[in-house]
């Protein structure tokens, strides 16, 4: 692992030397996120978002563990225990708003992280495993967020749980038994609430475990960079610490600014007012919508309105929604271009910025809106483009595109080819 010129861990303190002999944990950290990990020198701010996602997860774990001390996972009192947190628990309102908006921050950061990967071709060899583990983390995050949203036992919690577990009911033959098995009843009730709470507590730690694998897999080839050109010499890298710990520090500060803005000035801006109404199995809210980070997928789910062959529309929608994510697992083989970075791929770049990104934005808008005929029609076109982008457009682009010449090295990309353009010590 890592490059031959990586700094070696040489503790001068006798205590640290002793520890290094018995359990080399500090050495491990030093090599993973310290001065022992050489990183391309040209990373831009989009490379902050992996660390930011880690920060967001830690915020969720800390606030979540504390909230669990005050929350009662029992369907008759869950709603009031959340109100108890909001009104009676010292700083409870702050912890809950931080946890609820922290989830949104986590998704914002992870989506940018994923788009970074899509634009710069981070999913390409030799980093496919990093990409796949990242998608596993994304799926786990979605499951965790969904179950967390059910816990306050408001109207959206209840109906969200009903609609999402209802998706499994679309599976032929075994669908309904699976749905009953997932819920522990015929509709969301105490059994469902309890198991969702248990899993909502567990999964973040599973995510943490997969993050360790994700970073481990990343450190074998080392980080990618905006040119997509692999590291060739020591000149191309700088140690992670202090260079990128400092750069990430700037990102973390910006992250907490936006986070604080949400928590203190718009804590319910991203939420649904209906979730402040206690769950009522006999009255459906006028418009069941998931949290904003599920909107694009919800739009794809609702885009299927007619049966095709022998497959009912409902099952098609469910399959398409899951396919929208599973598709990304095949990306390393759908995009066969040898050039990684979108900077050097003029055609790819156009379809990325003017095709994929607006499509996902439109799907997001449609998923959050009431499903009128017009909205459904727009979602159908957008969903069609989404699949076409990955399954048709991307493979064709990879074959026909004339890419721009790549720099011969990262250093050349940074300093240019002018004579005398060599490394100078900082003054």
């Amino acid at each position, binding site marked *: 692992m890592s490059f031959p010129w990586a700094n070696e861990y040489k503790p001068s303190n006798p205590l640290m030397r002793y520890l290094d002999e018995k359990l080399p944990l500090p050495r491990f950290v030093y090599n993973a996120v310290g001065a022992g990990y050489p990183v391309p020198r040209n990373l831009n701010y989009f490379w902050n978002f992996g660390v930011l996602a880690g920060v967001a997860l830690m915020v969720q774990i800390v606030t979540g563990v504390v909230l669990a001390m005050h929350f009662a996972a029992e369907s008759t009192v869950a709603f009031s225990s959340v109100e108890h947190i909001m009104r009676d628990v010292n700083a409870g309102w702050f912890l809950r708003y931080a946890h609820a908006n922290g989830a949104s921050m986590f998704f914002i950061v992870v989506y940018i992280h994923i788009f970074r990967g899509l634009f710069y071709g981070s999913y390409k060899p030799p980093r496919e495993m990093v990409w796949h583990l990242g998608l596993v983390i994304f799926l786990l995050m979605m499951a965790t967020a969904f179950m967390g949203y059910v816990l306050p036992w408001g109207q959206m919690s209840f*109906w969200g749980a*009903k*609609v999402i577990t*209802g*998706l499994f*009911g679309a599976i032929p033959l075994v669908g309904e038994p699976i749905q*009953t*098995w*997932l819920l*522990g*009843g*015929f*509709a969301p*009730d105490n*059994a469902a609430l309890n*198991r969702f709470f248990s899993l909502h507590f567990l999964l973040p730690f599973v995510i943490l475990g997969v993050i360790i694998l994700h970073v481990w897999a990343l450190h074998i080839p080392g980080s990618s960079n905006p040119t997509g050109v692999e590291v060739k010499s020591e000149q191309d890298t700088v140690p992670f610490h202090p260079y990128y710990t400092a750069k990430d520090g700037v990102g973390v500060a910006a992250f907490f600014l936006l986070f604080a803005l949400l928590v203190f000035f718009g804590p319910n801006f991203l939420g649904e007012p209906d979730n402040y109404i206690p769950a009522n*199995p*006999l*009255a*459906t809210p*006028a*418009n*069941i919508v998931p949290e904003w980070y599920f909107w694009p997928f919800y739009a794809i789910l*609702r885009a*299927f*309105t007619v*049966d095709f062959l022998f497959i*009912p*529309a*409902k099952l098609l929608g469910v399959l398409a929604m899951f396919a929208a994510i599973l598709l990304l697992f095949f990306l390393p083989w759908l995009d066969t271009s040898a050039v990684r970075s979108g900077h050097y791929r003029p055609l790819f770049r156009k379809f990325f910025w003017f095709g994929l990104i607006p499509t996902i934005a439109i799907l997001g808008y449609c998923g959050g809106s009431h*499903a009128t005929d017009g909205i459904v029609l727009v979602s159908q076109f957008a969903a069609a483009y989404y699949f076409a982008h990955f399954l048709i457009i991307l493979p064709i682009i990879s074959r026909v595109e004339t890419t721009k010449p790549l720099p011969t090295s990262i250093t050349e990309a940074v300093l240019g080819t002018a004579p005398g353009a060599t490394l100078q010590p900082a003054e």
Partner: protein
Amino acid sequence: MESMASLTEDSATAGEEQGGVRRRDFINVAAASFAGVGAVSVALPLINQMNPSADVLAEASTEIDLAAIQPGQTIKTIFRKQPLFVRHLTPAEIASAEKVSLGDLRDPQSLEDRTKAGKKQWLITMGVCTHLGCVPLGAGEGEVKGEFGGYFCPCHGSSYDTAARIRKGPAPRNLEVPPYEFTSDTAVKVG
């Protein structure tokens, strides 16, 4: 590799009489199978605990008194923690349900299929849209009944007719008729 080769050589000579199968192979397979059976027998209760518990199943039937329900009126009650619609159809509603030819239906069922013999004025269905599980409107006083006069789901616009059959919108099936029986002329037991 060297040790592997010598091992197979040894075992080949040792196992010749038993057709190439060593005693140790048998022990390995037997031990792994035994552990496998053990793992499965422990996994079963771990999976089964997710199924509805006895108290949830105990609430699985509901009795309803029909005496007070006027023609044209629908009551909303609860069966298995889900809304249940009990509708007293008017003669006009029965006629409109019977007028439809089954070939035009997405989920072809006649009103007779969906009610008990001689009691076709009593339409008992789940109040759960077969699309994504919302509660359709049309049971309560003054609620929209949709363009086919039965129920209308506000979530994604599925319309049901006076036999609670799907006529328009994304829902794949008619509103489910739960298992039920008349215990007297004016009482039913659902479930």
